[in-house]
């Protein structure tokens, strides 16, 4: 376990060093990230001026959802995108062979090898928005609510990760993955708005089929102290299933890789 922590630390410090290696590129990335942030803030300001309700959500609580979305988007940019879109290159260039011969879990390697620090400000901004908006809407921040919030964020992230990993792992067959990343970003973007803002049929789909609700709406409800325990419980089971499935699928994919590749 300690070995895994040390490995992560070294992975990320080398990732940081790699990004700093190209000074200009790093500056541009910082600028691009600033642009993204301004865009997010602008969209938020639309919520302010509109003053309308979305579903049965007041704008303050809808803002919490925006915050959760921004946080997850930052995490996506920091961790999921740099790593999971890279899997296809490992397969195409054959460097997956090196990963498989390391005495370390290959899914772990492929999932945490890189960390893009350009995602960090978005993560911080997202959390700030969540807490600010939650205070605005009168949340009391009980220890319990905070705890449930963290758990539900984790649930959301694991679900997003697992779906993304599943699609990326399929590149073992297709080698060139279809623009899966865009589909996933659209899925996450659907979570920008409260789930009850959608028609009933979409609400159903977003909860059970494509668990968008778990990504943003439920964590927001958690910090507002409104999340029902049974949903949290359901979320825990669902995310565990997603995660276990991603691992099994990876094992299956590797079996194919090792029996078909040359």
């Amino acid at each position, binding site marked *: 376990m300690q*070995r895994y922590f040390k490995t992560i630390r070294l992975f990320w410090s*080398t990732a940081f*060093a790699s990004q700093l290696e*190209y000074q200009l590129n790093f500056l541009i990335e910082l600028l691009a990230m600033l642009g993204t942030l301004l865009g997010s803030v602008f969209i938020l300001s639309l919520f302010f001026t509109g003053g309308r309700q979305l579903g049965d959500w007041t704008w303050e609580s809808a803002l919490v959802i925006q915050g959760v979305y921004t946080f997850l988007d930052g995490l996506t940019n920091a961790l999921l995108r740099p790593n999971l879109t890279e899997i296809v290159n490992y397969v195409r*260039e054959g460097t997956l062979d090196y990963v498989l*011969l390391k*005495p370390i879990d290959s899914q772990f390697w492929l999932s945490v090898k890189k960390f893009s620090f350009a995602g960090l400000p978005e993560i911080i901004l997202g959390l700030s928005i969540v807490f600010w908006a939650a205070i605005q809407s009168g949340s009391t921040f009980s220890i319990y609510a905070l705890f449930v919030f963290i758990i539900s964020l984790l649930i959301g992230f694991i679900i997003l990760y697992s779906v993304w990993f599943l699609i990326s792992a399929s590149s073992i067959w297709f080698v060139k993955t279809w623009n899966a990343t865009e589909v996933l970003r659209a899925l996450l973007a659907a979570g920008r708005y409260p789930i009850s803002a959608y028609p009933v049929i979409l609400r159903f789909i977003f909860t059970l089929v494509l668990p968008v609700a778990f990504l943003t709406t439920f964590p927001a409800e958690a910090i507002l102290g409104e999340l029902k325990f049974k949903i949290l419980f359901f979320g825990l089971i669902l995310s565990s299933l997603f995660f276990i499935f991603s691992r099994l699928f990876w094992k299956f994919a590797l079996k194919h890789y090792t*029996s078909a590749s040359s």
Partner: protein
Amino acid sequence: MHNNPSDLIVVDQLSKYYRVANKQPGFKGTLKHFFDRKTYDVPAVTDISFKISPGEVVGFLGANGAGKTTLLKMMCGLIYPSKGLVDVGGFSPQRRQTAFLKEITLVMGQKQQLIWDLPPMDSLYVNAAIYGLSDHEAKVRINELAEMLELGEELTRPVRKLSLGQRMKSEILAALLHKPSVLFLDEPTLGLDVNAQARVRSFLSEYNKRTGATILLTSHYMADITALCPRVICIHKGKLFYDGDLDSLANSLSPSREVKVELKNPCASEQFEKYGEIQDLNDRFVCLLVSRDKLTDVVSNLLTDFDIIDLEISDPPIDELIGELFIKGKVN
């Protein structure tokens, strides 16, 4: 087959087939390919058996597509065998257990594992962490290997700025950090210039002597094989057709040598019959085919029996012989 304790690697009747489907050209072919796909197995490796003892350096020879890489990958656990058995140090490679992975390493000449934008040193410490080496152990090990590989400040220069030779040496360093006892090298000198090749070669032979590690390598460069591998395994079209020492391979490929002699005075052909098969006799020039084992005797007798101006012994280089063999497809 029972494992003899002296065998480190046992490969027994190993086969690998790839399932492929061929598509006829055109739209009709596409439809047929979609609805009624005919698949068949293409053998990559067929029924290969051999054993390797600890500390051996074995070269795998074969033309492109002969099955060398498939065989090597089955031994390090990257490819599941279709049939047969592989055993490496008591492990079944395809299970890729941690204890097994810590004992082996793979270097592929055409693929790199070092992080492109950073100096090799950064990648080395990442590898050290993965193999659970402490920073101190890693440092000692890096210094030791860097000295053997004649690597110095290259290790702190971004990989993208290194020459191919420096990069390959750094790759080898990264692959040997965890003191593996079995080295799988797939074309480790690919693309290197003659000097860099020679340095990699001398490093490998020194590493083998110092650590007693077993080395299995494939190479296109005959010089790699002749310099490093007392034993070669030749593979042709997925089948093993020679396993033994390099000298006897050369012997079995060309049991005789050509001896060309220029004489001071013309001699009759009968005088040469006892020395070997006469290929050509022309005034003062004689060309004899002499078997390898008699060569030294014949040459010394010739020198004492005749007045000789010039004597030339020619032996087709081994790579030509093997190349010819692969082209002809002459399999025993």
